[in-house]
């Protein structure tokens, strides 16, 4: 346990001192400022648009951070042999994976918490000027949406860990993670097209099977996208948070244990 936690701490410290993080934060802050300006282009539903843009900024910055810094931290271990520093301790391969994962999760959570709080400023400012729009807005749902962005990012971290445990180059794991992100963001919608049998779409049985497989195997990232609900002040159906969180726990657990399994078999010559 000490091994896992201490590794998580130094992973977090290493990540948070990365210059790239600083750059991403600056970009996010600029985007927030831009949000306030952009809302003046619209006439109605201003708060809705501000909330939507704020959440998009958090999501995008978080994604950049997780993908670049996450792959960077993991690849350093493998390319630059910093993993020796950890594996020479009485720490098992599985503990290494769990420790790294926790550290990156702390990093993601801290960043999103920070961005989440800052992002509420433009929304709040916009709300002051336009009370009508503010009436339907619901801060609860907004912060649940922020939480879900954090969960989504941590899920992506677990995917990065999995790919890093399987491939030997950081570049390959980067590309594969981006692929999983794109597929995961669209697989629910595509399956939806399939279910509704849109006119004029010819779908062969093979494609149907592929689409279904992709839907079950790849993570359903749209489930964590609550921008619309937050923007429109819609409260979530009962049990949604519960079941989606359960889904998240199990999917992450699968990724991490698979990564641990792969790591156990790997050699570091």
């Amino acid at each position, binding site marked *: 346990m000490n091994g896992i936690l*201490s590794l998580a701490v130094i992973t977090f410290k290493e990540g948070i001192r990365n210059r790239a993080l600083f750059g991403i934060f600056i970009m996010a802050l600029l985007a927030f400022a831009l949000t306030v300006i952009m809302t003046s282009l619209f006439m109605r539903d201003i708060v809705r648009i501000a909330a939507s843009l704020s959440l998009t900024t958090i999501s995008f910055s978080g994604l950049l951070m997780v993908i670049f810094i996450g792959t960077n931290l993991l690849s350093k271990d493998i390319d630059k042999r910093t993993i020796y520093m950890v594996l020479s301790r009485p720490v098992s391969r599985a503990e290494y994976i769990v420790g790294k994962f926790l550290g990156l999760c702390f990093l993601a959570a801290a960043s999103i918490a920070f961005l989440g709080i800052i992002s509420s400023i433009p929304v709040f400012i916009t709300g002051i000027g336009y009370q009508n729009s503010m009436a339907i807005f619901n801060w609860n749902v907004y912060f649940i949406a922020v939480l879900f962005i954090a969960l989504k990012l941590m899920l992506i971290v677990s995917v990065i860990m999995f790919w890093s445990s399987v491939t030997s180059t950081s570049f390959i794991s980067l590309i594969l993670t981006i692929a999983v992100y794109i597929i995961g963001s669209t697989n629910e919608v595509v399956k939806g097209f399939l279910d509704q049998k849109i006119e004029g779409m010819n779908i062969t049985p093979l494609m149907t099977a592929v689409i279904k497989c992709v839907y079950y195997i790849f993570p359903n990232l749209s489930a964590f996208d609550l921008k619309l609900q937050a923007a429109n002040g819609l409260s979530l159906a009962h049990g949604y948070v519960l079941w989606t969180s359960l889904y998240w726990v199990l999917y992450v657990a699968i990724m991490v244990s698979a990564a641990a399994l792969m790591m156990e078999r790997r050699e570091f010559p």
Partner: protein
Amino acid sequence: MPLIKIDSVSKVFKREFSNKKIEALKSLTLDVSEGEVFGFLGPNGAGKSTTIKLMLNLIRPTSGTLSIDGKNVSEKRVRRMIGYLPENPFFYDHLSAKELLWFGGKSCDLADSVIEQRTYSLLRDLELIDAMKRPLRSYSKGMVQRAGLALALIHDPSILILDEPMSGLDPMGRKKVFELILKLKEEGKTVFFSSHILHDIERLCDRAAILINGSLVRLINVQKDLPSGKTLEEVFFEEVERSGGLRE
């Protein structure tokens, strides 16, 4: 009972996507007793680093077993007893030496107070106290090496495994490491290290092994076995000749 026992260990590397096999170690058998200072020498590519990494469970043997203190090296508790210094140590750039040692201690279940005290005394001995809170990327090569030694020693291990500990150091640095190994010997620790610098091995080691092309060609008791007048260097080159030169 020997502390470190390497029994008929072979390691074959197979490159991905090709059938080309590299026999890095051919049935190596070796014992190291408690309190010994054991030297490991051989040309580049002889298998020295391979052997060391096998001991650390960073790679697994193709056949044979390695055990330390009666336990197979695949058990993680074995590493509680080992302090390892890799050939070119790399650490997380943005950590300071203090944080690095904190990690080293915590991962071995040391209490915070113990870690604190040992950190200060080690860094003082290794003359890294002033740089203690600076990030590791600002360290010179010699400082990095010393930080690596501190990490290897923070948990007071009974066995030190050092892979080319003098490589890349200036004369001052080499002197420091030399003195450190002597000190550890006095404390009764077991030290296993590989080196190119035959002179150091002559002066420090009790026994030494010469490894060429993955095979153990000669095991020497440095104090006793060296024929009068011959230096270790001469013995070494003899063995290289006998093996028919160096492998690619």
